[in-house]
């Protein structure tokens, strides 16, 4: 693979995450994701490229809710890639796991082999109510039924930033490209950047003492770093 100047990484600070789902909504708006109604949720078919997993801990009255946003981890050693029979998913030079919609036939092996449940299948042709038709983002394809889609780290925004940067004969600056979820997060729990730039925020967060990766023992090499929640003791 040719050497690129960028390797995109995301950092998710669980301590700052309040579970507000702003990232989920922003992602849905940015990426033309079909609407999820309660029928979809009950049928386990909700399409949420980034989702907030919520776990309850403890017994009443000390019940705590734990939130963890999970999106495609763009694994270096992605298990979804070797199993696609038509090469519809592969790794690009910038460390992103990319999905080629026209090529996907919809066998769903990649979705089965993703340990993060990060891949979504379009069971129906997507339909938006008349009032929402104008909100669709023209930079992002609308996917038909029968194919797999997932978080792309808002590759349309990355490409736009890269085009501008190339025109100005420079590299993309840190903070210049923000995926929709990062942009929308009210507590700045999400950080995104180029790990090949030693000055970027993500590079400086890489060695964080609270840092961990999801399912590290699987060896898939996820490119999302999570920062553990700081536990506060409740006295008295």
């Amino acid at each position, binding site marked *: 693979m040719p050497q690129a100047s960028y390797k995109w990484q995301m950092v998710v600070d669980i301590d700052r995450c309040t579970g507000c789902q702003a990232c989920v909504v922003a992602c849905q708006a940015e990426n033309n994701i079909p609407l999820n109604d309660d029928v979809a949720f009950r049928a386990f078919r909700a399409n949420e490229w980034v989702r907030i997993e919520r776990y309850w801990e403890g017994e009443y009255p000390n019940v705590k809710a734990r939130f963890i946003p999970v999106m495609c981890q763009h694994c270096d050693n992605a298990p979804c890639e070797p199993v696609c029979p038509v090469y519809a998913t592969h790794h690009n030079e910038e460390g992103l796991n990319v999905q080629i919609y026209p090529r996907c036939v*919809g066998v769903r092996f990649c979705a089965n082999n*993703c340990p993060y449940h990060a891949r979504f299948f*379009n069971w*129906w042709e997507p339909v938006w109510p008349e009032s929402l038709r104008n909100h669709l983002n023209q930079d992002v394809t609308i996917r038909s039924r029968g194919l797999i889609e997932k978080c792309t780290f808002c590759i349309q925004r990355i490409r736009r930033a890269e085009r501008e940067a190339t025109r100005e004969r420079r590299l993309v600056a840190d903070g210049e490209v923000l995926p929709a979820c990062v942009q929308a997060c009210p507590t700045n729990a999400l950080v995104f950047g180029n790990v090949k730039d030693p000055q970027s925020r993500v590079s400086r967060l890489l060695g964080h003492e609270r840092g961990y990766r999801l399912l590290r023992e*699987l060896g898939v090499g996820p490119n999302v770093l999570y920062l553990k929640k700081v536990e506060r003791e409740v006295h008295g």
Partner: protein
Amino acid sequence: MEARERLTEAQINEDLLGPTLRTPRWFWPVAGFLALVVLAGVVSFGLMINRGLGLTGLDRPVMWGALITTFVFWVGISHAGVMISSILRLAQAEWRRPVTRAAELLTVFALSTAAIFPLIHVGRPWRLLYWFLPYDFPRMVWPNVRSPLIWDPAAIFTYLSGASLFVFVALLPDFALARDRTRGWRHRLYSVLSLGFRGSLRQWKLQAIAGILLSALILPVFVSVHSIVSWDFAVAMSVDGWHATIFAPYFVIGAVHSGVAAVVTVMALMLWLFGWKRYIRPEHFDSLGKLELAVGIGWFYFFFLEVVFGLYGLGGPDLAMKQMQLTQWPWSLLFGIFIVTAAFIPIPLWMFRRVRRSILAMFLVSISVNIGMWFERFLIIVPGLARKQPFAFSWGTYSPRPVELIIVAASFALVLLGLLLFTRLFPPIPIYDMKEGQVLHQDLQVGRRRVPGIVRE
């Protein structure tokens, strides 16, 4: 082996070729009904193409369900044909004679039906050219040979062509026989198919050698096909319940287990529908039953190993799948049904000679085995996906919807219909093989007993 009556050639010809040339009365109503079921399946598939896979019960994370279960099921059934035909032929077991063609046919039709399922369950069937045929020549994008789903078609089509050749070579003398006894369009059909077989010494020799060579060569193919299908699951390292090294031989022996039971079902049906009491006798079911006993015990051993080692990492994520299978309703009920119908009823029953020699009992037990084996595949696929990895928030469930169940039923109808239509054109019991058995059968006088014997050079 048992003593049996001597049959003349003319009698054999009449008994075995007769039903092919003269359509029995029940034939068209039954075939018509099966065709209707198949049609219902086609309509369901059409609906799925038209509306989307949302019509199925699939969801996230259970993206493979009843359709893939049935795919694996039919590939499994297709294994019996080769097992019985080639292994028994190579071991020169006499009792194989009436069974071989039915078994081989079951292979061909079951495998063809199985091959339809991957086409049905993909999201965009109209784009399948990317998958089955290298399509994007100009853009140099080839199918991904690292994917088990590319190994699958290679294995299945190799097996299908091998098995079809096998059936054809074994049919040659019977084509010739039918050609010499028919007129009109049948005569023309058999003339073309028999490739000029006249029964000369050289032709018989070639036919025998071809049969033996194919028997030996198709054995590795037979082992590899279901292994490759099992690797669709076993190499998926994310699904802990699937990621076990034992899947390949476990699936193969499970396939033989269900496949031999399917052969018993077909044999019993042939006996009852065509009245071939002199050719399909209790001793055949006895031998099939002993084979099933050995295979069934072997399969249970592999199943046991898989369960024990699956629970091995106690407290690990693989435990969640087992918990779902064994303790959660309704999966625990399905598990109970599976283990009772596939193991706890058949295996003890096959130990008794009286059961093995009773054709009705063998028929019912064989159906029980296949019900159980369908659930076995279902219980591997669905709970494995439903409890994938420790993200319990994203765990799910699955229940099949009508379109899927109709398609599953249609697959059964398709296989039966294929077998039935075959009998209109070709004899399902190898006539020349039965005649050979008659010639090689001699009685021996041992002391005061007459013992049936086989001629060996």
